[in-house]
């Protein structure tokens, strides 16, 4: 029996797994029964597996070490975000949205703020707009540093993880000083930002950027990205074609790694991104090496953007005058921002009441998670870990 025949043989397992999900049963049992007929093995990876980035469970059918079938099982971190906010005020949704993608909290807040501010026609002062750009990019740097660390850890390299956490903590210290919290900032308000920052903070930020650019970034490259063992583990692993990536709704570094230069900061500029010069780094092969490389280059581009923001940052208030009870205009409003992981979209429907009628959250990780079976086709178990790591999924955002 060839590998192709085996794969064809287990296509029934997919249907059986889907039926089991419909019935409310565990899909793993249906898959295991089907796999046993073909002398294959079905194992669970997660939800407690340390390399699955949170509570992701992958049901994997294996032929020896080769992967025949992967079914991601999601929902372990479901918190009912979309339903809860239907009874919350618009101002309260902003800090709550931090909890979705907890490594890109600022970009979540900006997405909600943009939608609500468009709905209620709230003016945002120019200083606040520029500071939102600054914080989005600082968040991107911190998130990509963490990606670098955990991706190395997935591939068996422990040292990069420690280096990444050393530098990430510096970024979080800056964030804590500015916003009052390390991860879940609650910093954006409808109409601006919670508080303004003194000059000393900007001096520290510049020092952090200098450190990242001159010392940490070359160290990262030498320690992991240029390492031959790492290259052997990633080049050609988890390949995606541009057509597949677009068809499955991929965005962010995963899409750009396939060579599609699609970046919302450039393609559909929001905030004041149209005023800044930056490149959109792209890859060629769409493999895990390219998507990690795109993220590393994006760190440099983010540093470039923050420097430009600091140069033109105007004085003035950071919070516009907002009525305590905003008056919503009925209708549908959509805003999208480029989070560290891809396109975060907020579809807000209001009927004129004080609460949203419906809020749909478009999470990039949700789309990327569905790409894992595609990336893992014909691969070994270790390559599956590389594929999961390179998508940089945040389960808080997938399950919401």
């Amino acid at each position: 029996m060839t590998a192709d025949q085996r794969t064809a043989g287990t296509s029934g397992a997919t249907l059986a797994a889907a039926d089991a999900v419909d019935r409310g049963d565990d899909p793993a049992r249906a898959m295991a029964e089907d796999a046993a007929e073909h002398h294959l093995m079905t194992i669970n990876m997660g939800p407690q597996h340390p390399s699955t980035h949170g509570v992701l469970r992958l049901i994997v059918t294996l032929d020896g070490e080769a992967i025949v079938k992967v079914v991601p099982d999601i929902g372990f971190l479901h918190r009912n975000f979309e339903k809860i906010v239907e009874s919350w005020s618009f101002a309260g949704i902003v800090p709550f949205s931090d909890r979705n993608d907890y490594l890109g909290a600022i970009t979540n807040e900006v997405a909600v703020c943009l939608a609500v501010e468009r709905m209620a026609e709230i003016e945002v002062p120019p200083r606040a707009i520029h500071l939102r750009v600054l914080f989005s990019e600082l968040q991107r740097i911190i998130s990509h540093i963490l990606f670098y660390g955990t991706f190395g850890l997935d591939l068996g390299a422990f040292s990069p993880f420690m280096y990444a956490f050393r530098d990430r903590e510096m970024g979080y210290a800056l964030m804590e000083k500015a916003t009052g919290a390390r991860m879940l900032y609650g910093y954006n308000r409808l109409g601006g930002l919670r508080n303004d920052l003194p000059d000393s903070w900007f001096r520290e930020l510049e020092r952090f950027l200098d450190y990242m650019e001159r010392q940490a970034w070359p160290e990262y490259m030498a320690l992991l990205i240029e390492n031959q063992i790492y290259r052997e583990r990633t080049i050609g692993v988890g390949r995606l074609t541009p057509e597949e990536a677009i068809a499955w709704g991929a965005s962010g570094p995963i899409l750009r790694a396939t060579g599609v230069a699609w970046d919302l900061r450039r393609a559909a500029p929001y905030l004041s991104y149209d005023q800044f010069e930056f490149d959109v780094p792209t890859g060629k092969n769409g493999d895990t090496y390219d998507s990690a490389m795109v993220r590393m280059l994006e760190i440099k581009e983010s540093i470039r953007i923050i420097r430009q923001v600091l140069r033109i940052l105007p004085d003035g208030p950071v919070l516009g005058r907002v009525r305590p009870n905003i008056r919503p205009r009925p209708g549908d409003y959509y805003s999208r921002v480029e989070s560290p992981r891809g396109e975060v979209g907020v579809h807000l429907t209001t009927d004129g009441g004080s609460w949203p009628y419906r809020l749909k959250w478009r999470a990039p990780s949700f789309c990327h998670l569905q790409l894992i079976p595609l990336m893992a086709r014909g691969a070994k178990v270790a390559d599956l870990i590389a594929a999961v790591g390179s998508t940089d999924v945040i389960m808080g955002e997938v399950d919401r």
Partner: protein
Amino acid sequence: MRAAVALWERLWNTGKSMVVGHGITIREMFHKPVTVRYPEEKPPFERGSRSVPVLKVNEESGLLNCVSCGLCERSCPPSCIEIVQAIGADGHRKPWPETFQLDLSHCMVCNLCVEACPFDALEMADVVELSSYQVQDLIFNKEQLAELWKTSRALRVAGGECIDMGDDTVAAGVVRS
């Protein structure tokens, strides 16, 4: 791509990257460690770090600043604040709270109650070691919240204010060139 690279080149690169990688990690041995031995050693909080809203006590009178207006209760997105206004012996409502309960297990530390308060009665304290085996222990009454205000460093940041951070400490000891 893997096949295209000659074997000797891959071997050479492997040896090279091992030397480079070990060079970086060995160099780290001669630097001061950046880790802190928690809980024996505790890193200082940044000024303005927030973890729990506490009730401010007027230092002259020793009474709470809270007048039980209920604006924080209404602005709280997860509804974790519960206020009951005091009623005096004369049957009239009094400007202080009979009960002020904060359910910390629901609180998401968003600072919205502090911004809503017009009487400077709420502040954000920087105590984080509040974990408990009983969820009931996380429901704080007004005496406990006032005690937290007295024993911790609290700060009020209203909307749009510039926050005073004191000396710059972030990353000061870490950057080396």
